[in-house]
């Protein structure tokens, strides 16, 4: 692992420079929101921000993407082109919880049997540069309850830690190390900075305000697919899907076709288990008949099924669904309530 020091006021410029020869996806101010977006020429990313509205999963798994194109022939429609357009890229300004979310998503998209070429190609060509949460941004953050940490290195290629006057830059992977030369002349980091970082790590952990018993509820979930408790959480849910779209670990999608004249494309779009249509069969049969079953699915998927299959909870504790749910359904409260049953 290589370690360097980056001057505080130099960082935004360095990332801007990188965006001259590579695709850079980074937090930018967009009216009242901070969003992950592609840096256009001349744009600088935000380096001081609380958190972004959207999760950066969009970069590897876009909200809408063209999978392939086709055209009409005499015999029907035939394949014209498989669209695989991954380019060398930097994903900058990722919070440690998102970096972990990619490790979780890899279980789905990069499983031994079926490789999702679209996701994997982008993932392989992208360097993830994270900004450690020296001060966790929100009171709703609960990463430490679900296997994360505000200063976690998991899933990142480079981690930048704000030490007050400089950033400590840790280049963790070979992919990350290749970025050093693109960052100009960076001073080597001396060991005193490690101690400083450790101190900040301890205080950051203490600053996490929310704690949930995420790992304790599995035995209850194993036994209680049928339980009156499930009648209590969904009643106010609007099925808007905000929680699933903003969630860094939600990966459900739909595949649809779009035709214009002689040409057409097959596209993939995010979908949501909160929608009644999600499991609706042509015959009219729907195994999940009400929002109760859909909410149970969301919770079970994150805190039981994913644990059964991959040994980890499919929630990184970003608190995004808690902040953005229009009717204030709070996954922290649900988990806590279950732990008391």
């Amino acid at each position: 692992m290589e370690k360097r020091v980056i001057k505080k006021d130099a960082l935004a410029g360095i990332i801007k420079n990188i965006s001259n020869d590579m695709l850079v996806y980074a937090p930018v101010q967009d009216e009242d929101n901070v969003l992950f977006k592609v840096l256009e020429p001349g744009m600088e990313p935000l380096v001081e921000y609380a958190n972004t509205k959207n999760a950066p999963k969009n970069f590897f798994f876009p909200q809408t993407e063209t999978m392939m194109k086709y055209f009409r022939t005499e015999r029907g429609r035939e394949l014209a082109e498989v669209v695989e357009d991954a380019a060398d890229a930097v994903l900058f300004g990722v919070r440690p919880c998102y970096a972990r979310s990619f490790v979780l998503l890899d279980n789905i998209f990069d499983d031994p049997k079926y490789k999702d070429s679209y996701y994997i190609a982008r993932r392989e060509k992208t360097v993830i540069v994270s900004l450690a949460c020296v001060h966790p941004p929100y009171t709703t953050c609960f990463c430490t309850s679900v296997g994360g940490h505000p200063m976690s290195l998991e899933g990142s290629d480079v981690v930048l830690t704000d030490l007050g006057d400089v950033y400590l830059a840790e280049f963790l992977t070979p992919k990350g190390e290749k970025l050093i030369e693109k960052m100009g002349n960076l001073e080597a980091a001396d060991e005193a900075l490690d101690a400083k970082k450790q101190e900040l790590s301890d205080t950051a952990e203490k600053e996490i305000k929310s704690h949930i018993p995420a790992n304790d509820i599995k035995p209850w979930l194993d036994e209680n697919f049928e339980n009156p408790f499930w009648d209590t959480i969904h009643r106010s849910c609007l099925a808007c899907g905000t929680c699933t779209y903003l969630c860094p670990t939600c990966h459900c999608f739909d595949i649809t076709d779009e035709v214009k004249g002689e040409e057409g494309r097959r596209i993939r779009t995010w979908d949501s288990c909160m929608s009644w249509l999600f499991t609706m069969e042509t015959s009219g049969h729907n195994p999940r008949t009400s929002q109760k079953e859909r909410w149970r699915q969301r919770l079970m998927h994150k805190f039981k099924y994913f644990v059964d299959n991959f040994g980890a909870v499919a929630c990184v504790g970003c608190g995004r669904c808690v902040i953005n749910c229009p009717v204030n359904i709070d996954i922290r409260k649900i988990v806590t309530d279950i732990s008391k049953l």
Partner: protein
Amino acid sequence: MQNNPYVPIPVDVDKIITEVTTKDIKTFRFTFVNKEDEENFKYLPGQFGELSIFGKGESPIGIASSPTQPGYIEFTVQKAGVVTSELHSMEEGARMGIRGPLGNTWPIEYLEGKNIVIVGGGFAFTTLRSLINYMIFEENRSSFGNITVVYGAREPGLLIYKDELAAWEKRDDINMNVTVDKGDETWTGREGFVPTVCKEVAPSSENAVAVICGPPIMIRFTLPVFFELGFSKENIYTSLEMRMKCGIGKCGRCNVGNKYVCKDGPVFSLAELDTLTKEY
């Protein structure tokens, strides 16, 4: 591109057979456009494919042919919504796509050396037909014990694979019991519901496995018959259906408990189903 699991394999519609008098169930025989695709398409009975029509979409459909019938692959499809209706309007010679083979298979290795009871209802007989053709194939037949088939439809006109049923009736190495809920003037065969016929045929559970596919109501009334006959839940297999898209365990749509029906299924034993949630 070869490794992109979303890209359909190009196939030609080689032959279309209308199976039923209501004309809404047809069998489609496809041939592969590229020889190497045909060689790579290695499947076993019980698996399914995503029939892919650019411009319309994709539908998961069980493979109705058997790997012992090389050169083509068949699917029997009921006209239902967008994709299946488009398929029904297609003509021989049309070009489309298939993704697959997908999902797990009937437990062939486990079935070997055992007596096999096949129970099918309506047009959910497709992958059972694949299994029967696989088992009675000359080189495979001796690997299996007695084969008993109970297959039923509402009326004679709704029985599928009629020519094959007749050919199987003539063989002495397979015990055929074809039934209809209600016959017509020309029907000389058996009348009665599938569960009732199973009771009458009363296949022994000794060293036997039952493979059952059909409408939920048929399955509901058939299972008690097999429990009564002494079949354990480990020795009864069925195939599940859930709405699907990707077919490869990624789009998150088809899970029953912690299993994806597309990837971990569609074939499950009743014992396995007992460990899953009842949400299908």
